[in-house]
Structure formats: C-alpha cells, structure tokens
C-alpha cells in the first residue's frame, strides 16, 4: 500500500488509498448525518429553534441556530461540505479498490499446483489414512468424489508412483467484494445523473384543470421574491394559453430566456399538458381514515389526449420520462364552482338518471311535480350539540348538499344529503336523490419527478446484491488429494488437504464427508 517512493502523485495515491482516510470519512459522514437527523432539514426557523430549545436551552438556542445555519446544517445533505465528503468517499473507495485489485486478480488467475506431502500437512484442513485397496481404485473413487463436489481435478504423477489430484473452484468469488465497491460507485453515479438531468417538483391540480408547469423549490430566491416572480410569469403564461413561445413573444423575450427565468423561479415547463379529470378518496368503513385515494390524470400532447390513467399511491403515471406520484390532496379555497353529481330515482322505480348542477340550480324529479333546488354544500358535514350544521374538517371527509324540495303547493322541505350515508338519500315521497360526487372542489397533490439516473441506481442495486451474495456466501476453495502406493502392506496411503478463504468450517465438513466416502470405499 504505502510505497516508499516520494513523488507527489505517489503521495496523493497513498493518501487516498489509506484505510485511515476511509475511517475518517466513515466517521465524518456518520457523525454529521446524526446532526442532520436531529435538525429538521429544510424546515422553518420556528421548527428548528424549538428543537434547539430542547437541546441547549432557551438562552443559547438563537446563537446555536446561527452557528448551525452558517455551517449549512439546516440543509446539510446538499451543502458543499457534505457533498465533498461523499466525493471523497467515492474517490477513496475507487483508489482503495484499484490499489488492491491487481493482487487479488493474480490470486484469482494463479493456477493451482501440486503441493507435495510435507506442505499438505500444513494446510488448515487436512486428513490422512491408510487403506487396504490398490492405489488405482482409490484414485478413481477420489476423482468421482471430487467431481461430485464440483471440482475439475488435475493429475500429477511423481517418479515413485505417488499421484496427486488437485483442483480449485470459485476463484472468481474473490472479486465479489470489488463488485460491491463498484456497485456503490454506480449508485453514486446514478444519483449524480439524477441531480444533473432530472428535477423534483410538486403540483396541486384541482379537478377539471390542466397545466404544463410544475413547481419546484427555487434555490436562491426568498419566498416573497419567488411568489411575485412566479405570479407574473404564470400570468404571462396563462394569457398565452400555456404556450411558452407565445408568452415569450408577448413579453418581447427570447423563448430560451423566458424558460430560463421560469426555471430560476422554480417553475418547470413540461413538453405536454396534464389534466386532472377526477379525484376520489375511499375510506375504511365509516371512519375518516383513507384506504385509498386516486386521481384520473390525462396527458395532452400536441393538443391530443394520449394517455389516461388512475394514479394512486404506489402506482404512478409515467410519460416521456416524467413520473407523476399521488402524494396528497385537499380542498380548493373557492367551493362555489363545484358541481354536484346526483343520481335521481323517481318513486315509481324507474331507471335512475344523473343530474349535474351547481349550487342554486334546481331540477324536477321525473314523473312528479317536485322540484329539487341545491341550496348549499358542506365538505365535511357534522352537527353540533344544538343541531346546527358545522364543517368539521379541512378535507372533503363527509361531502353533503342541502336540498330544498317543493311541489308548488305549501312550504318546501329542507334536507341534507351526504355522499357517504345512503340512508340520507331518500326523499319523503319515496324517490331517492344520491350524492355521487361533488366535483371540482378537490385538488390532487402530485409529486412530479424526472430522474434519468434511477436506472443506473437500480443497476447498481442489482450488482450490489450480486456482489454481496458472492462476497459473503461463496468462497475460493482448493483441494489436494495425494495417493501413495504402500509396497509393504499392499495398500494405499491417502492424504487430503484443503483450504478456503471464507467460511472454512463449512468446507471442512464437505471435505470430511469426502474423506469418509473414500475411507468406506477402501474397506
């Protein structure tokens, strides 16, 4: 490892190939990572100042915050020094492997040679016994035994008639550990490719809306700047119908420059439009715990819809290398534009009909004189102690509409119809009005990612798994069997020696089994 040569490149090489550097990097990555798990990353000032109150007390917390912030600990996994540590780690791993690999390569490719009786008895696994059988018979049993153990034996005969059979297998398994090292480098390369050529963004898309812009965190703008620049750019885009070239033209700008200023404000343009047709949540029984939620997304490319897919957690949509992941959902601020989807069944049991209407609109139940008017919408209906309707959550957990039913004579009836409670759907006259959906007031929260490096990462994961299996569960095994004729007793002296670079006891048991077979064969 540490050569005596004094040239600068040799010094640099031995610095990077030293195990001490590896330990120092391991320790530094480990210890700083611990700090990064205690300080919440990319969180607000209030969040982390509270964490620091607990750790260092109220008095010291603000100055501790300033120090940690200056050192980059508030977003440490993207800080220059942490990334440098990772680069150092990669270089160290590469140099260490290159440094040691030639020697291992030589061992892997060294042909096995006959050992001779004396050296055989110095091997870690050895046995010796005498048999009353002719050497030739012993040799054929030994060959068969070696073959069934997976060894292709070579034969060496000495002048005095002694024969040595020898073989090795899985010499290449010594490369397993280097395959794992290489895999880690592949994974890191994939991560770098993802950072350079991909993006991570968010998109909150209400039902019925479409867009060709997704939002990521901009690196160097304050929230306020970001918001105002975004608003003006999005305004320009909207008035150009989402067309970047036209928006750039209207702003008297080069399209490339316009795109660039969008990216600086964390706005990432897509080459296509994506629209949310519908969003649904399914609950566990009558609880408010979501069992599944999904959005029907449609991709519109060059004005034509090309793909439609229900996207749910663990089942993303992929188009042109861009992935859309279901991640959250919520209610839009303005609930007045929602459309109630009602299934209406008249009292005489006719076929149900679907009605779509906004708040304030009304319809007539077929075959009756009754008019139903949609009076109001409540996304999470509940009643307080006095029986007054309230909205109990920020989500559309119990969507309900209040309808007013009149038959032209007398006063009307007012009634709440809740989507999740079909027993509320029956009207006094026996017809049913079921709330199927209240469309257009929920948005779907999507994570939008492009990561061309992910396949490199997966390749690295596969080779890592293979390398680990080879490195931990396979070993380079060598075996020698020496058969010496014994003139005096008309028998044979048999010697077995073996070695393996890993998991020696297991190989020892296999060799013992072979020896036992030979012994039995000789009786």
């Amino acid at each position, binding site marked *: 490892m540490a050569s005596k040569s004094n040239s600068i490149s040799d010094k640099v090489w031995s610095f990077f190939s030293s*195990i001490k550097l*590896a*330990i120092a990097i*391991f320790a530094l*990555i*480990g210890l700083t*990572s*611990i700090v*990064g*798990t*205690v300080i*919440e*990353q990319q969180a607000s000032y209030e969040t982390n100042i509270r964490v620091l109150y*607990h750790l260092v007390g109220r008095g010291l917390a603000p100055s501790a915050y300033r120090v940690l912030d200056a050192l980059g600990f508030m977003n440490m*996994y993207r800080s220059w020094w942490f990334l440098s540590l990772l680069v150092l780690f990669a270089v160290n791993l590469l140099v260490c492997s290159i440094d040691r690999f030639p020697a291992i390569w030589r061992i892997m490719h060294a042909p096995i040679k006959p050992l001779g009786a004396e050296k055989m008895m110095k091997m870690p696994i050895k046995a010796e016994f005498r048999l009353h059988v002719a050497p030739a018979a012993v040799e054929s049993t030994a060959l068969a035994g070696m073959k069934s153990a997976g060894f292709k034996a070579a034969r060496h005969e000495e002048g005095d008639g002694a024969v040595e059979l020898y073989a090795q297998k899985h010499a290449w398994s010594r490369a397993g550990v280097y395959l794992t090292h290489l895999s880690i480098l592949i994974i890191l390369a994939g*991560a770098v490719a993802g950072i350079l050529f991909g993006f*991570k963004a968010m998109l909150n898309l209400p039902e019925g809306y479409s867009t060709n812009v997704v939002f990521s965190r901009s690196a160097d703008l304050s929230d306020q700047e970001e918001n105002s620049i975004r608003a003006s750019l999005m305004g320009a885009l909207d008035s150009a119908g989402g067309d970047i070239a036209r928006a750039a033209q209207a702003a008297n700008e080069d399209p490339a420059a316009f795109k660039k200023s969008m990216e600086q404000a964390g706005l990432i343009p897509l080459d296509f439009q994506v629209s949310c047709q519908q969003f649904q949540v399914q609950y*566990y029984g009558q*609880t408010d*715990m*979501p*069992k*599944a*939620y999904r959005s029907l997304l449609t991709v519109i490319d060059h004005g034509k819809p090309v793909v439609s897919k229900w996207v*749910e*957690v*663990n089942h*993303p949509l992929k188009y042109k290398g861009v*992935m859309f*992941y*279901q*991640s959250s959902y919520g209610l839009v601020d303005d609930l007045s534009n929602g459309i109630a989807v009602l299934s209406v069944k008249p009292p005489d049991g006719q076929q149900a009909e679907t009605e779509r209407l906004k708040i304030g609109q009304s319809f007539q139940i077929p075959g009756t004189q009754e008019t139903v008017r949609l009076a109001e919408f409540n996304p999470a209906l509940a009643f307080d102690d006095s029986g007054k309707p309230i909205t109990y959550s920020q989500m559309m957990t119990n969507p309900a509409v209040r309808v007013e039913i009149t038959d032209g004579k007398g006063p009307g009836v007012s009634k709440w119809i809740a989507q999740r409670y079909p027993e509320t759907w029956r009207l006094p006259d026996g017809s049913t009005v079921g709330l199927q959906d209240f469309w257009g007031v929920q948005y779907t929260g999507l*994570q*939008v*990612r492009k*990561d061309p490096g*992910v396949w490199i*990462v*997966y390749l690295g*994961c596969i080779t*890592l*798994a293979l390398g*680990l*299996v080879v*490195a*931990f*569960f396979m070993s380079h095994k060598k075996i020698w069997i020496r058969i010496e004729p014994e003139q005096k007793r008309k028998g044979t002296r048999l010697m077995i020696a073996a070695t393996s670079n890993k998991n020696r006891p297991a190989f020892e048991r296999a060799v013992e089994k072979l020896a036992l077979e030979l012994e039995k064969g000789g009786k």
Partner: protein
Amino acid sequence: MESSLFFGLSTMAYILAMVVYITYIGFRKKAIGVSATGLTVFGFAAQTLAILLRWKEFYQMSGLGLLRSIPLTNLYESLVFFVWCLILGYLIVEFRYKNRSFGAFVTPVAALALLFISLSGMSTQIEPLVPALQSNWLLAHVTLSFISYSAFALSFSTGLMYLVVTTKRGEGAYMFWTVTLGVFGAVLLAMVIDFIRFKGAGLAPGSEAFIKNFLFKSTYKNGETSVRLLSYLATILIVFVTWRYGGALKKIIEGFKLQPATLDEITYKSVAIGFPIFTLGSLIFGAIWANQAWGVYWSWDPKETWSLITWFIYAFYLHARFLRGWRGHKISMVAVMGFVAVIFTYLGVNLLLSGLHSYGSQ
C-alpha cells in the same frame, strides 16, 4: 381475536423458558436443559400460529390481498416479529453449537420485549393500512429488515458477552461495556417509570399518546430543572454501579461455559448474515419502495439516514476484521455499537425523531 390467545401462550412459554434456562445454568442437568428447549420450541410454535392467525384476520378485514396483509405494520406487530426472528435465530445457534447456556441471555430479551408490549398498553388492535403501506414491497422490505435486526441482536449479545468475559476494570473495553449497559439500564428504567405513570393516568391505550405526553417526561424531559438534573445524576450513578460491580456479571456469564473464541465467531457470523440481508432488505428494497411511493429513492429522512449510519458501522466491522485483522475487544465493541445504531434506527427515530415511516409515532 383468537390470535391473542396464542400470543399469550407464547409469552408465558418464553418467560418460563427464561426461568428454566437460568436454572439449567445453575444445575447443569440435561433434563432441565431439554425442558428449557422444549418450552422455547413450544413458545415459538404458538407464536408462529399467532402470527399466521393475525395475518388471516388482517387479510379478511382489509380486503387487500394476502401478500399485502402481512401483520408488520405497526410497532406492536414489528416487535412481535422481531422476537420471532430472534428466537428462530437462537434455536438455530443452539442446534448448531450444542450449547444451551446462551438461552439464558436470549429468552429474557424475548420475554422482556413481549412484556414491554403488554405493559406499555401499546395498541394491539389490527389497524387499517395507510395507502403508502399498501405495497408488495412491505413484505420483502420489512421481513428482511427484521431478520437482519435479529441477526444483529445476536451479534450484540455475543459481542457484549465476549467483552464481559474477557475484560477487567481499568481496561478501555471494560469501561465501554459497563457504560453502554449502564445507560441502557437507566433508559429502560426511565421508560418503566413513564409506563407506570401512563398506566396510572388511566388513558386509553395507544402508543401515540404515550410517546407524545409521557415518554421521558417524568425524568429527562421533565418540566422541573431539578428533576432533570436528578435524572442525569441517577443515570451516572447506575453507570457507576455497573462499572463497580461488573465483575459479578462476569462471574455469571463465565458460568455459561462459553469459549470467548466461540462468542467471537458467532458475533462475526451473525454480522456476516445480517449485513447482506440488511443491505438488500432495508436499504435496497426500501429505496425501490420509496421510489415507487414518493418518487425518491433516497431523501435523507431520519430513518434512512440512521439505516445508513448502521450500515456504515457494520461495513466498518467487516473491513476492520478482514483488512486489519481486528479481533477480540476492539471488534466486539464495534458489534455492540452497531446494534445500538440498529435500536436507534428502529425505535429511536420513531420515538425521538420524525420521519416518513409510519409505525411507532405517526
């Protein structure tokens, strides 16, 4: 719930087995040893049955398909599975090394973990799955993770026993294991006090309320500065007592008649089995699953980061052993530290830090 009957039976069996294993060490009668093993095997069978029954119940209730209904989705279920893997690992070791003494060390861990479950009032209800957990990767990721945790737990106990048996007061390694064990004991004691107060408060069971309002609130995180100070002083006292009387523990473990070389070998083998499984199951499968669910294979959230720290420690263990030829005290200390990181990854992150993962706190 029919599964709870069998869980109860297995808990009882492990507690009895613990008593019998310890008796066995005292008397060294073969019959006692055989009955200890018998009890453990019985407990293991009952626990296997219980897990399968719970799986069936969950499957019937959730309507999610068999592979996605594996009962490994909250702290309670994961602890039960951890105990199951640990006992399986122990039974393999007992069979391979023909030595029962070790059982006196493992069955108490199993019994303590199961008692911890029933004392803590942890929610044992079958809970519905949040959508992110509805994936076939759940089975592969969580089972392999816990198999590796159990292998690491074995390496921890043999590594610790190695240190206890081979060190004397005045050595750095002695200091290391007494401090580690002392802190362990103190934290465990603090948690027991919290449990008692939690039980006393008569609140509905459920780990969430406990973690939020009670954990370490009567000791290290108490509102009164004096109580906090006293807790830290008590911890130092416990560490000191462990340090002062560590020799007594050494005498007990010497009674197990385990060769230090055997302990060192079991430590290494457990790490050699646990490490590739951990890499594949925890890191690789976890990354693939995260990529499917959130679109990021690695996001440096606390759970992931602590898994990586754990991975680094065990990678260090293997390199130190193979490249530098570390044996004995130094390498055993690394094995012990590795498992401390495992515990933090598994429990500490949920109890003390936040993350994307759901079990424990949400």
